[in-house]
């Protein structure tokens, strides 16, 4: 059953996975661009760190995009077919969802492995100044966890009804509207800062997307 599910999900999301894999492999290599040149001045450690840091902002973006697109692709045919096919299967819902979720997760392991391969290749070919070190494994683990989290969240939203998604979006939208209205009315109300702390703080659900995404660091 799982193999069939995996195959169908591969068919639906192979373009996303392929493009994501190419991007995931290329990103670490591009972020160390020039570090592998023979004429590179080994003293330009600060420039190298700055470049790596700049490119590092793309890892969480890529992780979130992959999680979102694969989660949506996993449920889109079911939504289109009004879940008739799924209901005809001799499976409880929880098991069907689990198989879908596992199928997407297995597919997402490909771009995560691509990040690891790209990072290993980039650090192996680069000439790093003394004091700087490559962190390919740490970066790949970070990326993998971010992908897993993004996928789980968007998968949960996609698996729910449109009403559930509407409620979640509505709550966030209402918070934004209240904040804007409070700003216009000159009221001392700050909803966004506490929300930011809750969501992005060290124990928050999206804390994994913050922090330093450095392939090379001291």
């Amino acid at each position, binding site marked *: 059953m799982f193999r069939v599910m995996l195959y169908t999900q591969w068919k639906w999301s192979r373009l996303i996975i392929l493009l994501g894999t190419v991007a995931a492999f290329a990103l670490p290599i591009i972020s160390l661009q020039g570090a592998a040149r023979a004429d590179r001045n*080994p003293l330009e450690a*600060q420039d190298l760190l700055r470049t790596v840091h700049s490119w590092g902002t793309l890892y969480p973006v890529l992780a979130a995009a992959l999680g979102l697109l694969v989660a949506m692709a996993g449920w889109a045919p079911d939504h289109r077919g009004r879940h008739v096919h799924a*209901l005809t299967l001799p499976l409880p819902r929880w098991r069907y969802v689990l198989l879908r979720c596992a199928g997407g997760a297995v597919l997402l392991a490909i771009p995560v492995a691509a990040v690891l391969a790209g990072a290993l290749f980039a650090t192996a070919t680069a000439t790093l100044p003394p004091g700087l070190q490559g962190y390919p494994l740490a970066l790949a683990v970070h990326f993998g966890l*971010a992908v897993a989290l993004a996928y789980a969240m968007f998968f949960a939203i996609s698996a729910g009804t449109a009403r559930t998604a509407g409620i979640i979006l509505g709550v966030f939208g209402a918070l934004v509207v209240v904040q804007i209205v409070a700003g216009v009315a000159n009221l001392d109300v700050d909803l966004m800062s506490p929300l930011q702390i809750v969501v992005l703080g060290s124990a928050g659900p999206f804390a*994994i997307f913050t*922090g330093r995404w*450095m392939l090379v660091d001291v």
Partner: protein
Amino acid sequence: MCNSAGLFVLLSAIAARPLAAQAIEHQRLRARTDSLARELTRASAIADLADSLEHQRAFSGRDTIAVGGLRIVTDPSPLPVRAAAERAWPVLDSLYGDAAQLLAQYPYVIRAFDPDTTAPRPTVYVGLTVPWNMNAEVLAQLLVANPPMPAPDYALASWLGGTLRPTTRAGRERTDVYLQLVTAPSTPARACFLGALAACRIALGLQSGGDVLALWYPEAAERRALVTRTFPDYFNHGANAGAFRVCAGGVDSVCDALLRQVSAGSLPSPLGAQARTTVLRLALRLGGRDAYRRLIADSGAPLFERLGNAAQANMDDVLARWRLEILAARPPSVALPWWAAALALAWAAVFGTCALRSSRWRLG
């Protein structure tokens, strides 16, 4: 004959006129200079008088609080001056050692003001003005950051880039120095990181004599980087603009010539003031309670020697220890801590459970 004489008289008159004018102008300028000098003397006297009166005003009718060598002159208020002084004194004492007793001669002056009133506060020129509701911890930090120690000699002050103050964030400072060691675009800094103590000495600006430019930035690429990144505003205009472009294009001799126009004192040292402060603090720590006094005792000696005297140790040993302390302060790795990874997985599990329990397919 007559014509020649006439011509001579005419030329003499023409030549003498500017000379006479110059003499008058010279006299006028001299008178002006003298007048300005008199004004300066008068202004200095008035400033001294104002200073003296201000000091008198600052010290009169106020309480003096003594904690260790600290003397704090303050007006009666709820400000927790004694509690703050009790916190600040050990910090100051541990840095300056026996020399901290000098602080008894240079008291702090603290004026507390009411933070809740809108009444204008009197202007003060001596001491610190703080709200009386400031807590003891913040006030202690203020005392630690502004010790009224006599300024060190010029050589030490210019090497340090200011005066030596205690710190409450020594670990963070060492971490910053670690980053400087790794990222400074200078061969001595890199060599120091790798363990060459002679290079540490150069990178810290402790060498005596020699060509500073050649010592600090021995490679052509470093000098080019210095011209194009540190001094672009200075060199990339006017008469130097052409040379700047040639240097940026890779002609090293031109870069060198440009940098020779800059005085040695204006060249940025490979490791900044923070690194120098950390090595000085280490020397004082090693030297015991009399270290600061030994440091400031001989202002004419080379700094390398003075630091060694302060530490009462071989300076190479001091540098070796300093390097080890800096290496030990390496910033934490970018690798995620285990709890962050566990937390991310836990959140993913929460979302996964939400998906399993979603309402779709539920009838009714």
